[in-house]
């Protein structure tokens, strides 16, 4: 029992690594544009499918597919931005419907191109098990992408806090007009946030492809999960998102271990509702209330 608990904790922690990269992408875009990109998960899935296509056809190692996937996802991300920027009236409702529609388009394009089958990497190196302290098991892919995820999160954190562009992103999220007065070009900054989100999505997509299985309907599930994590964490802080992601990962793996795999999504949903109703600004959100 104790070992099971420990293993569930460990698996959840590892999943949290790439969950966090998905969620931070969503939060960055929300920060600059005040828009929840409901096609975000589909972009993540797109990266996974690019890796699948390259591996299936040319036998490429999924990690080597990252540059190609990066180009595809960033271009798609930029298209989403270009379309979103065209909306003028009723931005809140219309941007939701637009990105929801774009998500459906992407899901169905993936379905038409790669069929509804379930895929996963055939590269044995990623699937080999790693044993830590004789008791904790993980796939090599999980460990690699957990560490990679942490590094990426640290990089984004540094970028946001130290670089001029990163500060511009934060300035735009906290006060749009003041940021403009200080010489921040909102368009450039918004595009930048979409591109960084695209890069994070690419990483997450490859992580999912090597560690889990992919299928066309997964994109929507990823979007919802990322949204739940950002709600949990509050949109503000990167360490918060990381903790939220690990929490979701752990709760899911506990549900799967001690209840049933079919309840995995339910656990996240219930947690989401509880947090929304009890602490709508998130566990680490500070002042920025989500319900406003």
């Amino acid at each position, binding site marked *: 029992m104790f070992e099971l608990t420990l293993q569930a904790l460990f698996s959840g922690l590892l999943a949290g690594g790439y969950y966090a990269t998905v969620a931070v992408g969503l939060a960055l875009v929300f920060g600059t544009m005040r828009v929840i990109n409901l096609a975000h998960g589909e972009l993540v899935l797109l990266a996974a499918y690019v890796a699948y296509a390259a591996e299936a056809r040319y036998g490429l190692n999924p990690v080597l597919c990252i540059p190609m996937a990066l180009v595809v996802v960033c271009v798609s991300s930029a298209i989403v931005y270009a379309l979103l920027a065209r909306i003028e009236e009723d931005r809140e409702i219309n941007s939701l419907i637009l990105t*929801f529609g774009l998500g459906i388009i992407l899901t169905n394009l993936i379905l038409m191109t790669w069929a509804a089958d379930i895929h996963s990497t055939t590269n044995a190196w990623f699937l080999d098990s790693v044993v830590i302290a004789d008791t904790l098991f993980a796939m090599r892919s999980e460990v690699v992408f957990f560490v990679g995820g942490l590094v990426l999160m640290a990089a984004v954190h540094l970028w946001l806090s130290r670089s001029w562009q990163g500060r511009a992103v934060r300035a735009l999220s906290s006060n749009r007009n003041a940021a403009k007065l200080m010489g921040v070009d909102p368009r450039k900054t918004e595009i930048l946030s979409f591109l960084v989100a695209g890069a994070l999505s690419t990483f997450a997509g490859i992580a999912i492809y090597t560690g889990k299985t992919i299928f066309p309907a997964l994109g929507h599930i990823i979007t919802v999960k990322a949204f739940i994590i950002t709600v949990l964490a509050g949109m503000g802080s990167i360490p918060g998102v990381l903790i939220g992601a690990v929490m979701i990962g752990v709760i899911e793996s506990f549900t799967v271990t001690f209840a049933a795999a079919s309840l995995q*999504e339910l656990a996240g949903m219930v947690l989401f509702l509880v947090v*929304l109703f009890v602490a709508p600004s998130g566990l680490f959100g500070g002042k920025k209330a989500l319900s406003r």
Partner: protein
Amino acid sequence: MNPRILIPILVAAYLMVPLAFQSNDYILGLIVAALTIAGIAVAWALLGNLGGMVSFGHAAFFGVGSYTSAVLTMKAGFPVFAGLLMGGIGAAIASVATMPALRLKGPYFALAILAYAHIFQILSVQMEGITGGAGGLLSIPRFPTVLGVDFGGKLGGYFIIVTVVILAALAYDAIRRSTWGLALKAMHDSELATRVIGVPSTQLKAVMLVVSAFITGVVGAFNAHFINFLEPDYAFSGTWTVLPIAAAIFGGYRTVWGPVLGALVIYLFDQLLFKEILPHGHQLVLGALMAGMVLWSPGGLVPGLIRRRKGGGAHAHA
């Protein structure tokens, strides 16, 4: 409701369509399915336009309505037509459970309702004793024959759903014209200002949510008795959310008949045309329609047509 609009609609609904297609069960079946979507689309538009809330979880109310009616008629001996009403009431009660979500806005409300839909779906799988679990419910009773009219067939089903949809649209219209409608419209412009002059905005939104859920529940109950079969994946399927949204956006969710027209056009085109061309992934077209309408004609089809007839200018807003 303007009789110049209503009378042609009634004539088409009760005379022309039945006369034209009474012997063609296939087309009639498609029209019934399209009207089922239309009913949800009207309910969705009512909440979206008047309440200002986008829901991604109307499948929750559809599923609860269909299960309520199916279970009550099968296990408690309710007459089928009473079941229809109970389906609506069941969904309305379920909507009370979702009311804490009303203080959320925009994406938070939309996804909170989606979460409810998932939770209801999982509950319907787990409550095997009542709902039959993942296996679902078979041979749900059909609509009976009343005064010599067989409501169990395709044509009878058509008359029921077309009545439900027309009543829903009339209710939407009546609310829109009432003082509530005025207050809700003011809320759309500035919720804070509306609250300041004493409009109980949260209560009004709650009422819209209940009405919307009730309509969706009735439609769900109708569908259960029309196809005589239910399972959780079907009853709470995302299709019951996506198609109505696409229909309402396409037709124009700020108008009363836009969602109905949108549902008929989208569903019939989807089934007769797109499904033939793209057997896999024909929902692509729905996504493209949603995105395209938002970008190029945010008001939807119906206001666009009206504007063209009037030669531009007037903006058809709620």
